[in-house]
């Protein structure tokens, strides 16, 4: 019996020839990540175990991206503690200030994650790096501490579900529409504990940015990881960025899958996940007369250059509706700079949008765009749970960049064809 790409990576990192779904393994890790809301708990545990060093100061990464620029005294204190820890233990990569970006956009861009890696992160969207053919998954602060000290962690080898996508994508469609379609189909626990693996010609035609979006939201289906085959686009991406050697793994033809689901790319329209679950997915055309107060374009899901390009295309020469706050958050300093160089900022500012520094801020109701009671937002983020962006009686509709930009212009949930 053959192995999947996930099984092969886990076998290689646990010193085994083969692994099977359900098996508990101890795996080495190539990188461990934490941020300004998960690292503080982890540093408390680090003190408890009386460790004197981290396993490798070049492979433990802190990204202070959630409540930064610091939203209050407590978050400033947390960042200070992490900064001091990073200095004391010689942590090479501790991103903050002008170097800081949203962690899951920043790490691949900085070349800290490469194909074939095993990565754990104290953040549930760590699964994003599967876009590059790595095994990566979210853990809590305690598991992060164990990984940071030992360079190892335990895993239950997941079963895999394969999604084969064929055909051609319609206009405006990005990775967000595919992943929302899938979560709508299988549910928020449809891939519980499993690996979501992608294959097919339509997958290879997707940009790396779209693949990040799809892998990012694997957790919204309950999955342990999302993973893509490594192809020419992946290698081109890694070639100019990768800081370490990489290894390409490929699923065997006779690998085992819990389920194989085929998807015709042409059948997928622009999608919106309505409150208050990411699985409550509808076609944007089915949604009528939903007025909104705010639009957020950004996050680890959709703050990439591809997203900003689409927003600029929809918004060019137009203004957003007068009562709408449209907050655009380029995910990293490099994306920020490039969007500015390409002239997107002029389009955004002329249109009446706010351009925020890279931060997770509003996605989790932290700061930089929190919702009042009864307010409604369209967001390119990943979760629309009750109270996710603010007041428990506010609502979040999840969409891709084209729908978000069109909705900002119309002041209600809209298809981009209504405004272009």
């Amino acid at each position: 019996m053959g192995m999947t790409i996930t099984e092969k990576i886990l076998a290689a990192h646990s010193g085994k020839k083969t692994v099977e779904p359900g098996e508990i393994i101890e795996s080495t890790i190539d990188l461990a990540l934490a941020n300004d809301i998960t690292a503080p708990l982890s540093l408390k545990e680090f003190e408890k175990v009386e460790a004197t060093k981290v396993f490798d100061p070049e492979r433990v990464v802190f990204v202070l991206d959630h409540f930064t620029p610091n939203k209050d005294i407590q978050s400033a204190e947390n960042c200070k503690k992490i900064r001091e820890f990073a200095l004391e233990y010689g942590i090479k990569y501790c991103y903050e200030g002008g170097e800081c970006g949203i962690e899951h956009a920043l790490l691949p861009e900085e070349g800290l994650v490469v194909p074939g890696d095993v990565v754990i992160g104290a953040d549930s969207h760590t699964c994003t790096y599967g876009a590059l053919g790595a095994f990566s998954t979210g853990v809590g602060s305690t598991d992060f501490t164990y990984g940071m000290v030992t360079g190892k962690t335990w895993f239950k080898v997941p079963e895999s579900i394969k999604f084969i996508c064929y055909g051609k994508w319609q206009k405006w469609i990005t990775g967000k529409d595919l992943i929302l379609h899938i979560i709508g189909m299988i549910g928020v626990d449809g891939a519980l504990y499993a690996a979501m693996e992608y294959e097919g010609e339509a997958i290879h035609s997707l940009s790396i940015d779209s693949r990040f979006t799809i892998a990012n939201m694997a957790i919204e289906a309950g999955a342990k990881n999302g993973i893509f085959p490594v192809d020419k686009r992946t290698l081109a991406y890694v070639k100019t960025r990768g800081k370490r050697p990489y290894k390409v793994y490929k699923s065997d033809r006779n690998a085992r899958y819990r389920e194989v689901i085929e998807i015709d790319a042409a059948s997928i329209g622009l999608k919106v996940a309505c409150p208050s679950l990411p699985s409550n997915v509808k076609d944007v055309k089915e949604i009528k007369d939903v007025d909104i107060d705010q639009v957020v374009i950004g996050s680890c899901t959709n703050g990439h250059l591809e997203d900003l390009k689409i927003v600029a295309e929809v918004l060019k020469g137009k203004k957003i509706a007068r009562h709408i706050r449209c907050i655009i958050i380029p995910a990293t300093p490099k994306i920020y700079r490039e969007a500015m160089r390409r002239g997107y900022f002029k389009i955004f500012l002329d249109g009446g949008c706010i351009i925020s520094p890279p931060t997770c801020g509003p996605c989790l109701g932290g700061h930089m765009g929190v919702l009042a009671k009864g307010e409604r937002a369209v967001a390119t983020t990943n979760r629309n749970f009750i109270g996710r962006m603010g007041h428990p009686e506010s609502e979040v509709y999840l969409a891709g960049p084209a729908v978000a930009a069109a909705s900002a212009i119309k002041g209600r949930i809209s298809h981009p064809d209504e405004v272009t």
Partner: protein
Amino acid sequence: MILKGRVWKFGDNIDTDIIIPARYLSYTDPEALKVHCMEPLDPQFHTKAMKGDIIVGGYNFGCGSSREHAPIAILALGIPLVIAKSFARIFYRNAFNKGLALLEADILNKVYEGEEIEVDLTTGVIKCKEGEVKAKPIPAFMEKLINDGGLINYLKKKLRGA
């Protein structure tokens, strides 16, 4: 170990933004976190929940973020156990790491809010008014981890031995 406690019922997909909203995540002190536990569904939950109470949920309890603040907030209220039809995987690991017991059993429609139930954590047998239900056994690996005093104690011992 036998636990006896009053039941608090919650539904399916109780996410971590409900268990502890993200705006409070700058706190690491359990006492500061517990007063916001389940706030979006019931802002007074922290005044009603008593030491020894038990949370009963449906499918996919603890879905969403990796925040360990979630099991910490529940534990800080004195709630030692959550019983649900299924758990999200990061929450499952975090709960065991923090010492919050979890049992997988479908009892949401078998118990009443406020009913006292008796749970044998070793055998997984849950006694409620409608009768007995047996929870899925805790995976052997997790049981060993618990018997070793949890991941952090295990690591501490390992570092001392080295």
